[in-house]
């Protein structure tokens, strides 16, 4: 299989969902059951992506395949020379793994939605939106330059707006869609600024060319500060898209959309796009940028975990857990554990999608009940859902034998090493705390939903297991949450093929003085490795080895503690959750109300924007309109003057002419008296004049 064939298959994979979208949009009303076409297309795309992944990871393992074409040539920009803007694909290991993940989850969500959305009156349009979303996401994954990524970034934002606000007649849903889009846009401003800094300096958008330039010493505007700034600004896009603090507020509200949408977008793919972006620009991040990223990620995960403790809506708990896990991924990238971050992205995609679809199954069978305080005892009624949900919860809590444990463990080890090497100990502390909190609230969710006695017997009686099309995806995803697919060693991921062969941390290209010490090459030979091997210092590798076992034991301990406490509160009822909540009521409220961040934003940013816009409106009304009205008044005045002139002068002149000729005529009319005698007098006068004239005497 040649490279060009691979590229062509990727192009087909990219455009298949778009084909599905256009077909369903234009023909959906006329052909019934056209959504099956959409689902089939996704199935084909999935198969193709599996083929591509297999080929790439086996045959072309160490080679990145790039295919590009020049889109715009600006030949004569003054003082810039020739500027070429290229578009194209870059296929490396990260790409094909993401392709597989995106296509698989998109396909499973399509299948799940066949049953979940049945009966909805906009059924066909839903599948069209899923198609355009998949297309946009694949565009982000496949691209090799920042411009195309930005284009598809915005397309993903649009698709998520359409999908979140799918039930747009509900005000809360349309508000949530607007919120998502606007908050994303705020992050995109930073991303755009970062892209522009890079473009100004390097005259190109292509990743590889930029990195080569940086490696050769060409720094934006000649200062490391600008390089750091560029990195942080592009990270802003990830802050918006991946719901990091402070732009995380849209993601919980986005639960207004249908649950399969939440599974697709907010668990597995779109929010992962932010992390994917940081993965792509990892090599150009300076130490300061990485520190900022780590802090943002850590803080986000802590905030989200504390909020998730008290939430009562099943989807909100999962949403905050997503924010928290995304914080984990970002934090991991910030501390330099590149491979574990991406690994966690993959495992998180699978188990979080399973959790969301499982909650969708519960909601569907409980007739759209979402409050977990009204559920309970569903274990007996919905076994498949229960067991898949349980497996995913075990994965997210970091219990061994599951995929989540492998990736989380690696991240925590990375933070420990980072703390030891740089002295920023707060980050690992936060990391482990969040791990414990995660285990607690996830098991709280499971116990309250599935264990114990049903609280609402009416709904409980009607609950039933979901049909095959809904439970099959759950089974697939739960299966993928088990360790065996990733490594043969259940407690150590380093020896597995994923981390050893597939995901290779790339070489940093930023100048040496801007890197963390542990990321600088320690020997000359290590420095020269191209395309693949991590050039971490020897010190880093040793520290990571040191950190491995302590991290593992510590994470096991906190996870076990969390699960234990959850059981004590909710299963065995040894401790009373409500009493505790009453005792620490301020904290409880603070957590329940999402740290009052939405209210804070309302008071500051939104109020500020509204007042600014009202100032602008005043300006527009009074001054601009005043100018326009003033000019209109001037025109009216001028025209009135002109009217006066016309009436008095011009008309006066004309009237005078008429009057004058009338007057003359009237005067001369008196000559016509009709009397012969008058005429005789005239004759005599004439004779006299003739006499004068001819002077006969």
């Amino acid at each position, binding site marked *: 299989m040649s490279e060009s064939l691979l590229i062509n298959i990727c192009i087909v994979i990219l455009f298949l969902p778009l084909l599905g979208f256009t077909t369903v949009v234009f023909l959906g009303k006329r052909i019934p059951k056209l959504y099956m076409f959409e689902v089939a297309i996704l199935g084909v795309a999935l198969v193709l992506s599996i083929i591509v992944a297999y080929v790439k990871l086996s045959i072309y393992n160490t080679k990145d395949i790039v295919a590009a074409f020049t889109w715009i040539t600006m030949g004569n920009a003054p003082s810039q020379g020739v500027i070429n803007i290229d578009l194209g694909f870059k296929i490396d290991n990260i790409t094909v793994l993401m392709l597989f993940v995106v296509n698989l989850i998109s396909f499973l969500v399509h299948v799940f939605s066949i049953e979940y959305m049945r009966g909805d009156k906009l059924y066909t349009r839903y599948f069209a939106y899923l198609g355009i979303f998949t297309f946009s996401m694949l565009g982000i994954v496949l691209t090799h330059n920042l411009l195309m990524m930005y284009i598809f970034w915005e397309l993903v934002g649009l698709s998520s707006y359409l999908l979140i606000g799918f039930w747009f007649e509900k005000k809360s849903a349309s508000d949530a869609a607007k919120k998502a889009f606007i908050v994303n846009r705020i992050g995109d401003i930073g991303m755009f600024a970062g892209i522009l800094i890079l473009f100004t300096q390097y005259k190109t958008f292509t990743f590889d060319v930029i990195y080569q330039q940086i490696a050769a010493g060409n720094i934006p505007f000649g200062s490391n500060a600008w390089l750091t700034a560029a990195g942080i600004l592009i990270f802003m896009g990830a802050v918006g898209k991946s719901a990091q603090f402070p732009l995380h507020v849209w993601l919980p509200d986005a639960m207004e959309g249908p649950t399969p949408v939440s599974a697709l977008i907010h668990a597995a793919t779109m929010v992962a796009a932010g992390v994917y972006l940081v993965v792509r620009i990892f090599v150009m991040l300076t130490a300061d940028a990485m520190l900022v990223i780590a802090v943002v990620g850590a803080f986000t995960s802590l905030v989200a975990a504390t909020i998730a403790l008290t939430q009562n809506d099943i989807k909100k708990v999962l949403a905050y857990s997503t924010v928290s896990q995304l914080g984990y991924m970002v934090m991991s990238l910030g501390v330099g554990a590149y491979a574990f971050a991406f690994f966690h992205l993959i495992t998180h995609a699978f188990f979080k999608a399973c959790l969301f679809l499982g909650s969708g199954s519960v909601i569907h069978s409980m007739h759209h009940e979402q409050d977990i305080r009204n559920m309970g005892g569903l274990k007996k009624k919905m076994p498949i859902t229960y067991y898949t949900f349980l497996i995913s919860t075990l994965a997210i809590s970091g219990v061994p034998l599951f995929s989540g444990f492998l990736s989380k463990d690696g991240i925590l080890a990375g933070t420990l090493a980072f703390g030891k090497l740089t002295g920023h100990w707060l980050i690992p502390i936060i990391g482990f705390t969040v791990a414990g909190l995660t285990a607690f609230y996830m098991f709280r969710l499971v116990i309250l939903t599935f264990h114990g006695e049903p609280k609402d017997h009416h709904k409980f009686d009607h609950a039933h297991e979901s049909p095959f099309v809904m439970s099959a995806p759950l089974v697939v995803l739960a299966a993928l949450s088990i360790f065996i697919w990733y490594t043969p060693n259940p407690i150590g991921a380093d020896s597995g093929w994923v981390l050893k062969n597939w995901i290779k941390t790339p070489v940093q290209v930023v100048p040496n003085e801007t890197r963390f010490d542990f990321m600088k090459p320690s020997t000359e030979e290590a420095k020269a490795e191209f395309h693949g091997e991590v050039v971490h210092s020897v010190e880093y590798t040793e520290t990571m080895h040191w950190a491995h076992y302590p991290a593992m034991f510590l994470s096991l301990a906190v996870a076990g503690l969390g699960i234990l406490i959850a059981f004590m509160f909710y299963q065995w009822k040894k401790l009373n959750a409500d009493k505790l909540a009453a005792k620490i009521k301020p904290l409880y409220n603070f957590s329940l109300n999402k740290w009052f961040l939405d209210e804070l934003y309302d008071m500051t940013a939104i109020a500020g924007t509204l007042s600014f816009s009202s100032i602008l409106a005043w300006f527009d009304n009074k001054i601009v309109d005043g100018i326009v009205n003033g000019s209109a008044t001037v025109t009216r005045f001028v025209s009135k003057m002109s009217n006066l002139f016309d009436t008095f002068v011009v008309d006066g002149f004309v009237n005078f002419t008429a009057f004058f000729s009338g007057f003359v005529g009237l005067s001369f009319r008196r000559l016509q008296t009709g*009397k012969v*005698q008058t005429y005789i*007098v005239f004759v*005599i*006068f004439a*004779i*006299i004049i003739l*006499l004068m004239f001819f002077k*006969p*005497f």
Partner: protein
Amino acid sequence: MNFYDIIFYIFAAITILSALFVVTTRNIVHSAFYLLFTFFGVAGIYVLLGADFIAISQILIYVGGILILLLFGVMLTNKITNVEIRTGTVHMLPAAIATGIFMGAVVAVMVWTEWKSELSVTPLTTTKDIGHLLLTDYVLIFELLGILLLVALIGAASIARRDKE
């Protein structure tokens, strides 16, 4: 200054003064009588010019015919309520100016022109010679005048006749 000139000036004065009163009097009958004196004056001037037959014809025709006719006209065309018949004037000022200037001009012409004048000898009585001329040199006009008079007679009678009821 001989007798001839004095007579001439007397008759000239009569003529012109009478003519002046003809055209300025309000009373029609007075105007007619001043016309009578004018005719007499003109006849006198004819005599001074040696045209005795013409003078007699003037008196006969003008005074005896035309003036009587004019008086008839006056009487027939005015509602006679009293003896005095008044009438107005039109255009006095412009007409006065015009005729004044005209008179001045013509008089100036008459005075300043070098007339080639020779006194011709006229016979004492011109009747015989005029009659002779009428039937020899001017016979055509004579005959035509006869016809003209006939036509005038018929015409006047037909114009002035009363409509048949």
